């Protein structure tokens, strides 16, 4: 600073050219908000890990037949309620190919349960890329090759077996196919309905809005669980597992849209007041164009976040229905169907691994929640 005679302090003139012309030339200038959002999302470690985990899960869904050593309904009458078997690589101090110890069970009639003992003297190596139960890859290509199978005369139950001697690990993998996709189908239906009703209520307002609001309130006033039960009970019992699966997804979707519709409506109300929407109206744009080109794109990211946050409730809904015996039914396999077997306290107490399907449910639901939170934070404009 320079002191002038009259007591003023002044900074020396800087000769740098005016900078406002170069303002738009940052590397970020050409990036869309989407790309900026993705960047912010990538900084959210937990959400990023969850997203990668979920992506892996979904990518593996078509391949579960290959990964699972058994078919979903392959019974092993000799090994009912077998405990989880470990895969070992050390035997007698020496390194071996992965192997299991064969187990044999006998009925403990005193305590009325099955007891299994492992024969630690006769390790049996796993077979790799071996023929086993037939399955269809991605539901299309018939195949018999499995990643690994049990040795010839014993079993490999990584997470134990259930009351019919079916492999819990394989069934959890197969169950994922239904349990993870029921959420997607349901959410697609609920988003379609929610966006449609929310958009017209929010954009047109007035009487239409009033009617839709009342409809939502009526839907919300109906107790959810009994309604689910009633609708599921109405699914004919002779339908095949796939039809039941779609019926259940549609039921879940039909009941889930009001929350989303309200979010869309509220967002539309505020977006409608933005000048760019008024500008489009002044230009003569039709409502459908304004909704498609101006309102929804500004809302798309919120939709993704809210979808990610509501998939867990779909998964939990399916689980709850199936657990109560009103959702998917055997021979379909889902996590809820599997838990249906774990309804008896006594069986959980003696054979705790029958409740294992809870684990993937908890993990997947948490992953969706973390990812949804991360998305929401990344989309929050106050962070920019």
């Amino acid at each position, binding site marked *: 600073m320079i002191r002038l005679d009259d*007591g003023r*302090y*002044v*900074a020396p003139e800087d000769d740098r050219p005016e900078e406002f012309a170069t303002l738009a030339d940052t590397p970020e*200038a050409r990036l869309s908000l989407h790309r900026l959002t993705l960047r912010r999302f990538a900084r959210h470690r937990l959400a990023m890990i969850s997203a990668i985990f979920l992506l892996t899960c979904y990518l593996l869904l078509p391949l579960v037949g290959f990964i699972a050593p058994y078919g979903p309904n392959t019974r092993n009458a000799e090994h009912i309620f077998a405990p989880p078997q470990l895969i070992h690589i050390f035997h007698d101090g020496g390194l071996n190919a992965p192997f299991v110890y064969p187990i044999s069970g006998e009925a403990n009639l005193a305590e009325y349960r099955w007891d299994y003992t492992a024969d630690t003297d006769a390790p049996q190596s796993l077979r790799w890329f071996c023929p086993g139960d037939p399955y269809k890859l991605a539901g299309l290509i018939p195949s018999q090759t499995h990643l690994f199978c049990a040795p010839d005369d014993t079993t490999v139950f990584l997470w134990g077996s259930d009351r019919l001697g079916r492999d819990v690990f394989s069934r959890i993998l197969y169950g994922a196919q239904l349990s993870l996709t029921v959420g997607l189908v349901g959410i697609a239906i609920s988003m379609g309905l929610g966006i449609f009703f929310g958009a017209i209520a929010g954009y047109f307002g007035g009487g239409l809005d009033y009617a839709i609001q009342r409809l939502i309130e009526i839907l919300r006033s109906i107790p959810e669980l009994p309604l689910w039960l009633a609708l599921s009970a109405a699914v004919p019992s002779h339908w095949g597992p796939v039809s039941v699966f779609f019926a259940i997804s549609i039921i879940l979707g039909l009941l889930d849209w009001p929350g989303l519709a309200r979010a869309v409506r509220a967002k539309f109300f505020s977006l409608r007041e933005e000048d760019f929407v*008024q500008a489009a109206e002044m230009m003569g744009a039709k409502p459908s164009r304004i909704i498609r080109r101006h309102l929804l*794109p500004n809302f798309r990211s919120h939709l993704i976040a809210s979808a990610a946050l509501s998939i867990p409730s779909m998964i939990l809904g399916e689980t709850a229905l199936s657990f109560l015996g009103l959702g998917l039914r055997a021979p379909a396999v889902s996590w809820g169907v599997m838990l249906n077997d774990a309804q008896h306290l006594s069986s959980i107490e003696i054979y705790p691994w029958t409740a294992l399907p809870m684990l993937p449910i908890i993990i997947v639901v948490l992953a969706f929640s973390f990812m949804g939170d991360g998305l929401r934070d990344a989309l929050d404009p106050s962070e920019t």
Partner: protein
Amino acid sequence: MTNITDAPQPAPILEVRGLSVGFAPGKNVLHDVSFDVRPGETLALVGESGSGKTLSCRAVLKLLPKAAQIRSGSILYRDATGEIEPLTLSPRALRAFRGDKVSMIFQQPMHAFSMMHTAGDQVGEVLRLHSDLSAREIKDTVLRTFETVGFTDPERVYGAYPFELSGGMRQRAMIAMATIGKPRLIIADEPTTALDVTTQAMVLGLLKKLQSETGAALILVTHDLGVVANMADQVAVMKKGRVVESGRADLILGSPWHSYTKRLIAAAPEIPTDPPVAAPETQPGPLLEMTNVSRSFVLRSKLPWSRPQTFAAVSDFNLTVPRGATVAIAGESGSGKTTCARIALGALPPDPGGSVIYRPRNAEPIAVHELTPQTRTAFQRQAQMVFQDPYSTLNPRMRIREALCEPMEIHGIGTPAERLARAEEVLGWVGLSGDMLGRYPHAFSGGQRQRLSIARALMIGPEFLVCDEPTSALDVSVQAQVLDLLAELQEKLGLSYLFISHDLAVIAQIADEVAVMRQGVIVEQGPPAMLFNNPQHPYTRALIAAQPEPDVQRPIDLAAVARGAGDPAEWPAAYRLTDNALPPLRAVEGPHRVRAHA
């Protein structure tokens, strides 16, 4: 420069020395900022948005965003009881310091109050925290303070919730809150920016009065050099986080040294004291004629069974926009000027009886007050709008290319290649280059966005633009550029503007005719030369008097403001507006007319 002997001055109450602040990983946003505030004096921190003026004054109270780090420098507060360094205080000591020694007046009176508590409650909170007065004494003190800030009915305000108070009243309550604890230093961050100009004048007058009564020092953060000229003893001009010039207000405003200060002062619009009388032009034909336009809204009544009330937003409105000219509507918030703009654009129909006729150059006149789908499309190609808020006027999800081409797409004009060529051409008109077409709006500054908004309006070749406060959200230097651009485009394309603004200085610069509105009626109308030279109506006089000028010699005339800015039912009898008697517009001299009884 004159040589001034340094008179012995009291020690500064606040000394900021070499303050540098940066955000977590980034460069400094404040560089080596120093200033002093002496007891009883007002220091104005002046600068454009992003110059760091708010950050510097918030640092005094250590009210900084979380990511901000103080990298160097010191702040020293000194009064009769001792010295305090706020930057080193513990959170507990800091709480005692804030509100007791130093208090703050925020920009947005709407957001500075909690809606759930009464005004009296919130103003008294300072005393509850910092004094040991009884509840009774606190209430008495609050009521006394309310009286000093000019509330005529302190009891009512005491029990009122913030949403029951107008913007000006809320800012008064805010000032009461800031002064009730008798702080030695008040920091006011753009205290009047959100207010109408007459309210601003009265709030500034109040601040000055309180300051002379209590002898408190004041730091005034503002972008408005007119406010500085009226309030400040000392000025620090900030640019990009640095103080570029600081010293006595009369010196800085009278003979600025730094080129940036000079530019700021040159850009500040003024109402000319003696505007040149425009040479009488050949009368061009009218482009838009609004005759007998009124518009009332039905208010929902408080009780479901009582009759709904109607509220007249606009009444007896007649205005003609000549071809190629700029007609401005001036008025404060709630005067009905935006309603008029919407009626002029056909976005809102007038009440039956009013007519709005638009006369295109080569086609049949269009009746805007009763548009059919066909005439609406034709009219939309002729008339477009430029909006106020540069941050909301562009869709953040659309590239500039898409935003600019959209109007042509909607009207089915041209092929995609022609639209793109047109977009590049129009971008050139508004002073932006064609290689910006691939960008998104977030890459542009406020002034650039406003240029883009003008470009979008010009895409389909309209003749008529309605500009709704297009510069009120911009910095003064950018505002001057946008006004120049509008004038340039008018000359080049023969555009006509209906220009809406609350700022008479801006209007004086751009308009060919001005209509001053209050409570939905035009109170005075005429060419700016006549209107500003010889204002007749007390409200026009108040508006002109309230306009702060960046000249220490021309302070705000508070008496004139008070005469005209009050309730229209209390204006002098000749001009009084009452519910059932609307005086007619009478000619003063040529086209200059004023609404007055004979």
